């Protein structure tokens, strides 16, 4: 009986192998996509749709943070780097030194949401308030009309694009050359999910993450810049009313070729954009061309 089973299995595998004869015109290959944790779920879904359409192209998606993606693009260990921030001029300079010439594609837009525990009475904060909280100038929720609790500030690791974006826009208030740093008591957590867990469990915590990670378990704050506060949602990001809105990017080394080009076109096309929308991001308005550089 057992031998029979094994024989059948071998035959089945053999038969499957025979069916695998590839149409020579069909694209085959392997694409390594690495980078932003913010986009990793969306990219995973795009790749699954992509592999349905092109079954002989294999796409591997890894997270780790935008910095990880950009570093591996420079080190030549990935085909597409995903990033939730733009490459810094210094990074481009280093890339060029390594004979890598990054080309940028904006694939979607995202809002950076601030989340607090459901039992926290605070509903809205301004960018100025966030700046005070994240630089340690304000350390108690009392100062914003909340309970008398010390604020626990949560942040992503330094490899995160969201960390970099938040540092520039909130900690340094968008001023170039500012030397403000994150409050040194800030907890640096290694994933967006870890931030969700801590905020869901800790009444005094505040954390930031990509809009796609906001769930029922935590409360997203309304954020104001010049008076009016807006919740982080698709419409407010699209019309730029939500103050912490940003682009999400794919980077390739030079003009994308072969299967990599197919993948980028697919992500920017209607089917790819659909996946970004389903994972909570805002699709780019004009799906035909959306690139610079």
């Amino acid at each position: 009986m057992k031998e029979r089973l094994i024989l059948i299995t071998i035959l089945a595998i053999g038969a499957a192998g025979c069916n695998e004869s590839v149409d020579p015109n069909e694209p085959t290959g392997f694409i390594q996509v690495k980078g932003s944790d913010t986009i990793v779920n969306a990219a995973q879904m795009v790749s699954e749709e992509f592999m349905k359409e092109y079954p002989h192209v294999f796409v591997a998606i890894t997270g780790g943070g935008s910095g990880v993606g950009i570093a591996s693009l420079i080190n030549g260990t990935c085909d597409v780097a995903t990033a939730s921030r733009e490459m810094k001029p210094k990074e481009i300079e280093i890339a060029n030194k390594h004979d890598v010439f990054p080309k940028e594609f904006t694939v979607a837009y995202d809002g950076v949401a601030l989340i607090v525990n459901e039992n926290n009475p605070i509903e809205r904060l301004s960018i100025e308030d966030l700046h005070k909280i994240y630089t340690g100038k304000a350390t108690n929720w009392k100062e914003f009309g909340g309970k008398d609790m010390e604020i626990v500030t949560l942040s992503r690791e330094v490899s995160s694009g969201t960390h970099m974006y938040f540092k520039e826009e909130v900690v340094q208030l968008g001023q170039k050359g500012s030397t403000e740093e994150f409050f040194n008591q800030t907890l640096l957590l290694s994933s967006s999910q870890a931030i969700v867990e801590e905020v869901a469990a800790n009444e005094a915590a505040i954390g930031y993450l990509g809009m796609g990670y906001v769930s029922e378990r935590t409360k997203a704050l309304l954020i104001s810049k010049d008076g009016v506060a807006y919740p982080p949602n698709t419409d407010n990001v699209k019309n730029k009313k939500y103050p912490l809105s940003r682009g999400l990017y794919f980077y390739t080394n030079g003009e994308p070729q072969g299967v990599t080009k197919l993948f980028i076109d697919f992500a920017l096309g209607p089917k790819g954009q659909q996946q970004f929308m389903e994972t909570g991001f805002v699709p780019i308005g004009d799906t035909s061309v959306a690139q610079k550089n």
Partner: protein
Amino acid sequence: MHKRISEYFIETCIKLSGLVVIIFVVSIFLFLLKDSLSLFGIYNFRDFLFGKSWLPISEPAKFGVVPLFLGSLYVTIGAIVICVPLGVGSAMFIAEVAPAYLKHVLKSLVEILAAIPSVVLGFIGIVWMGPFLRNALNLNTGMCGLTGSLLLAFMALPTVISISEDALIGVPKTFKEAAFGLGATRWQTLWRIVLPSASSGIIAAVMLGVGRVIGETMVVMMVTGNSPVIPKSLLQPLRTMTATIAGEMGETVSGSEHYFALFAVGLILFIITFIINFIADICLRRARR
């Protein structure tokens, strides 16, 4: 003749494997040394060793290793303080007191404890132990050094238990018989005769436990909060050297200042474990005499 050839062959094999290990250790050290020394061409050595802030992506970047070193030190001391009494105590129980059937059950349970992957422990730390400690001790956050120390103590327990148990079992029976013959109780024998005679093995167990704890990465990265501050107590978030290397290595471009700085941190870790092993070795030799 035939015997001679096989003897020679086996001898050479053993000699070669010994040499290979030495070559590995030396080349790892040289590799670390080369990349970390590259840092000091571009970054001040004293700022690295005595710098009080670790800000790797700021302009200009600061690579002060003091907060990371103290983070590792605090977590390790905490873990050892929790782990050693527990571990040596259980080893004494298993080796000397427990009845045979319980001995088998306990030994296999200790082995299972050793088989738990560190990520799983880290997850338990995030979801359960962190919130529990926060409520129990009324802290701001459960992501603190103590959570890390407790979980690391769990991880080091199997090492400490099994090696101390071996040491206790290895004490010659005659010692015990002599003590009993002089009218000592079971406790007096265990505490004054067996434990001191096994001290060399127990010190080795503790040192290996320290080695395990200081090199552990995943758990501390998940539960200690990773704030690069100079810690004042175990009850606040801190960042260890291992978590820094693991958390930041992926984003560095090879050959950059940050990359070399992480290697320099790795070199410090290497030197620390080297010193620990060296001390353990000296202790062992002294105890044997």
